[in-house]
């Protein structure tokens, strides 16, 4: 029998022992970042937030989605889960931002380099198929309990789609356009910024949308290691067998998901 588990354990222990300074630094940075985002949304009066979100949905995604957002958020407020929803929103938002900050460059890199692509792809497969619960363990070992390890697990789980779709989008830019750009003497940077990224934008935005959805689906799992928000409500509902409470939390997650999906889906499209 090969005792793979032991090796992984050793590896994780070795990481925690030798890179504790690094993890502490990351922990500190992420705590401040997520804490800041969370504090902002919780501090913001609910009617301002609702007005902002509904306005954005109305502007980018049309009247129907504007109303949907307005009613959805009012409903969440009426259920009495506004603060938890904002905590979840903050977690999703900051995880997504970090996942995009890592994922888009990785996607660009793997589109432009065969070697990078060959290394990145299996890692993405691994990240996507590994059951999300498994990430919780090293997350806790590295960062302790709380929102940061939740965000860490969320980032790992939510990053693959944006990497893949960025890479795909860039690879799908028609060869003759790339060739034309080169023929006019564009540097590789100009090619990327003026041609490849703008043309890949619909695909990249689809990746952003997917990343947000994946991040939302991690909410409950992340709350198992102490991330605050709607996940806590669901978890409480499960542990105390309070069906109503569990459903309320779940419903709030679904509404938030629908609203974010509608808004981000329409961001890239011109009106």
């Amino acid at each position, binding site marked *: 029998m090969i005792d793979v588990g032991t090796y992984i354990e050793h590896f994780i222990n070795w990481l925690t022992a030798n890179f504790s300074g690094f993890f502490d630094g990351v922990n500190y940075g992420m705590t401040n970042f997520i804490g800041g985002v969370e504090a902002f949304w919780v501090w913001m009066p609910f009617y301002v937030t609702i007005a902002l979100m509904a306005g954005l949905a109305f502007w980018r995604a049309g009247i129907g989605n504007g109303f949907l957002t307005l009613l959805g958020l009012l409903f969440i407020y009426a259920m009495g889960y506004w603060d938890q929803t904002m905590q979840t929103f903050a977690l999703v938002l900051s995880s997504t931002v970090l996942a995009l900050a890592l994922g888009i460059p990785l996607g660009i890199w793997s589109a432009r380099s065969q070697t990078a692509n060959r290394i990145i792809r299996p890692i993405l497969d691994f990240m996507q198929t590994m059951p999300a619960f498994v990430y919780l363990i090293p997350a806790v070992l590295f960062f302790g309990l709380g929102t940061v390890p939740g965000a860490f697990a969320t980032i790992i789980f939510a990053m693959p789609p944006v990497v893949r779709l960025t890479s795909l989008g860039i690879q799908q830019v028609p060869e*003759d356009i790339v*060739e034309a750009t*080169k*023929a006019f*003497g564009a540097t590789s940077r100009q090619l990327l910024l*003026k041609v490849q990224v703008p043309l890949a934008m619909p695909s990249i935005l689809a990746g952003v949308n997917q990343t947000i959805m994946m991040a939302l689906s991690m909410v409950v799992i992340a709350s198992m290691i102490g991330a605050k928000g709607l996940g806590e409500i669901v978890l409480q509902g499960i542990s105390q067998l309070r069906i109503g409470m569990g459903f309320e939390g779940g419903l709030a997650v679904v509404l938030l998901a629908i609203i974010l999906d509608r808004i981000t889906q329409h961001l890239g499209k011109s009106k």
Partner: protein
Amino acid sequence: MTKILIEDLYLIFGKHREKALKQSREGKSKAEVLSSTGCTVAVTNASLNIEEGEIFVIMGLSGSGKSTLLRCINRLIEPTAGKILVNNQDITRSTDKELLNIRRKEFAMVFQHFGLLPHRTVLSNVAFGLEIQGIPKEEREQKARETIALVGLEGYEDMKVSELSGGMQQRVGLARGLANDPEVLLMDEAFSALDPLIRNQMQDELLILQEKMQKTIVFITHDLDEAIKLGDRIAIMKDGEIVQVGTSEDILTAPADDYVKSFVEKVERGKIVTASSVMFEKPTVARLKKDGPEVVIRKMRDAGLKTIPVIRTNRTFIGFVQLEDVIEAKKKGAKSIEEIVNTEVHSVYPDTTVEDMLPILTETDLPIPVVNEENFLLGLVSQTSIIVEMTGKDKEEIQGIIQNAIDL
């Protein structure tokens, strides 16, 4: 002046290029090289000189290596061996930085499928080359507007290119190329994706633009009619080799091999072949003052002629005399042939096409004299040779047809 000189250029795709190159240089065929090294030879031993200000057409079927050869000129594809001299500088040795500069200043390229940026407007597409060069917005848009006017797209500046028709998109492509004010325009099957009517129109406009601009244009096409219409000179490629280089008339009248011949057969020769290439040069002539009926009859008998062109002492052409008229004149005891010359003759210039000579056939059964601007007689075009040219068949085939007709 030679603008682009290509010397012994090879382009090979695959892993064992060195080996393939050696074999190809030894004269092995594409198929042989492929089977022994697994490499595809796209261009073999290409040498060309492209003169400043000419439209040079490279013609061949798909897979002949013409587009790859074009891409070697601005090194979108790296040639495996050989030299490419642009303004006497070997660009295969240029550094990346020099290459960018050459692509920015020296060349502009127009593509078959346009290669435009669909998310941008016409204006910003045309200004794209200048944008790459880092020219300020005001200035590049000013220049772009001028070029847009040049290709007849005024009023479309703010439209997205995806909203335009194919023909208009290619005008944008052309304008984008011209906005850079390049020395050389590389056009890769630029009109092939357009429908025939628009294609024709674009060809005409390119020729009109070229009158004004006098750029060096390298034009790739698979269409011989297009090559003939546009090209000052044409290179024909087959299987990565350049089979023949010459003017359209050179290629039509003296195809280098059967491959070129098979192309040429489909062309409307009447529109291209001119009097100068079908005329019979230095015909036997009668001199008006010097040759009396006696001499003329002897000349005609020796040459086996029934009619003979008459010239003055200074070689200017006057008309024809018929054998029976000369004999008649001799019987009457005339001393000169001046009385009997038929001066009502239609003559043509050397660059008159065979097609334009056809109507003359309805007026006369005499050969058609070819004269220059001073009215010197250069040669004669027989009626038979006009018909032979128009049919595009060779003498043997025509003999065969006549034989069949007799047998009937």
